[in-house]
């Protein structure tokens, strides 16, 4: 029995991404809300809880958004945790519904991307980042992840071909996702021959910033059944912030602190999961999640990659919609992408990219490069 009782997640929606948008973030979040209402048949007044994530809402925020869209929720939460926000939103919404603080919680994340917007976001991301990272070449996340990747390659023996295999499999999966911005098949020669960005990272190791939104609903199972919605059980959730603060270089993430808690709560092990959606801003972080969530031993990532097929029909279906590396990184919506895709897979609503027989799915998140490492980790295990 899940610790969340009969609370379920349902109605996974994506507001199709675009490379650049003239709309503001309110528009993208409102579009996600509207898509949730269409998917569920609910009226606006039925939404009495709202959990949101966004980077580009300023000067607005969650309270201004309620007035912007005419919503009167009795529970409002805002998660400034970027890539970790999806599992965290689900976690908060589920406990709120279980305990009676809300009946139907809309979880939405979205961001716009206007010309210069990504540069401005990175330049002022945090005080440490602004003062002690940006002046060193203004490489942004590419620069931070390049150093983590360089270190991981020396530590584990991972090669560019290993990371390329992950990127190519995701691109293959994206060919079945009409919402992915990058759908042209990728060959290993394309991957290896791409222009360098920040060594050892080349073009196809780096997510493409874009605008977009993602969302899902959390409610009691009986309500979902009344609405005719296919729903997923919430078997376990974890989050950790600033895990392993004394590691000189980030070679592991907070998932490793909490993974035993996750699998114990879920009542299953990593081998029982039928599809996995990791946070893939850069492939080294995918490998870190495989290790730290227990899919393979620490430093066993390269062997694990070499022994598995990560396509939809493969023996380890992974980032089945193409992940951010192919769909695009729509700001904080990138933190929801994995949960939304896991919900599709576990409710059998993934269409052309449905993995056969999904009983359990995992989605994990990673966010907030504040200085030299990502601070926020999260994960959720869902059941059919």
């Amino acid at each position, binding site marked *: 029995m899940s610790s969340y009782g009969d609370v379920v997640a349902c109605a996974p929606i994506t507001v199709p991404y675009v490379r650049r948008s003239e709309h503001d973030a309110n528009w993208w979040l409102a579009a996600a809300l509207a898509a949730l209402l269409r998917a569920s048949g609910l009226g606006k007044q039925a939404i009495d809880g709202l959990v949101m994530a966004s980077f580009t809402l300023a000067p607005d925020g969650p309270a201004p958004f309620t007035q912007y869209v005419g919503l009167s929720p009795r529970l409002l939460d805002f998660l400034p945790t970027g890539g970790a926000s999806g599992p965290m939103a689900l976690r908060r919404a589920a406990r709120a519904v279980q305990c009676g603080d809300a009946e139907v919680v809309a979880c939405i994340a979205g961001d716009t991307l206007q010309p210069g917007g990504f540069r401005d976001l990175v330049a002022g991301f945090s005080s440490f980042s602004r003062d002690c990272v940006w002046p060193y070449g203004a490489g942004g996340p590419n620069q931070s992840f390049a*150093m983590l990747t360089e270190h991981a390659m020396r530590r584990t023996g991972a090669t560019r071909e290993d990371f390329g295999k992950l990127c190519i499999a995701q691109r293959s999966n994206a060919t079945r996702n009409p919402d992915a911005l990058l759908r042209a098949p990728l060959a290993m020669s394309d991957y290896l021959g791409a222009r360098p960005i920040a060594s050892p990272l080349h073009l196809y190791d780096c997510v493409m910033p874009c605008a977009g939104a993602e969302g899902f609903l959390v409610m009691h199972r009986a309500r979902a059944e009344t609405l005719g919605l296919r729903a997923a059980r919430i078997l376990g959730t974890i989050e950790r912030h600033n895990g392993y603060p004394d590691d000189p270089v980030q070679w592991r993430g907070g998932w490793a602190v909490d993974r035993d808690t996750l699998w114990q709560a879920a009542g299953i092990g990593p081998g029982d999961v039928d599809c996995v959606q990791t946070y893939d801003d850069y492939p080294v972080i995918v490998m870190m999640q495989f290790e730290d969530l227990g899919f393979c031993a620490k430093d066993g990532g390269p062997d694990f990659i070499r022994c598995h097929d990560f396509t939809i029909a493969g023996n380890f279906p992974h980032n089945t919609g193409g992940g951010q590396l192919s769909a695009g990184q729509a700001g904080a919506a990138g933190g929801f992408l994995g949960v939304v895709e896991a919900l599709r897979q576990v409710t059998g609503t993934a269409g052309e990219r449905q993995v056969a027989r999904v009983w359990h799915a995992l989605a994990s998140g990673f966010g907030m490069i504040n200085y030299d490492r990502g601070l926020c980790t999260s994960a959720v295990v869902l059941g059919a």
Partner: protein
Amino acid sequence: MTRAAAMRRMDAAAGRGLLALQRCADCGRVQYPPREVCAACLGDALEWEEAASAEADLLAETTLHHSHDPAFAEALPLRVGLARLAAGAVAITFLDADCTPGCRARVSARLDAAGRAILHASPTR
């Protein structure tokens, strides 16, 4: 230019060619980036130690071929790394060409064109 208050103390020292590092008067921890409290004991009695340079081990590196700031365009490619200071903190620094991971380095500070304290690592001979 917005800059954290604690950073401005580093900037002032770098203007005199010195590297200033924060040390907690209560627990002795050295921390970087500088801030207004000690991340170990939460005390706010932070002292500044100034020196020409600090010993460090280079942990990781990258060569930047792309920058989000046009001001860096002409300087590319730029080498940047993570250096663990002997005193305990990890610093992002520019790297000399012959400074590679595993190398013992000396980290010093200077001002960049915008008046910001910038760290630089060169190999220890």
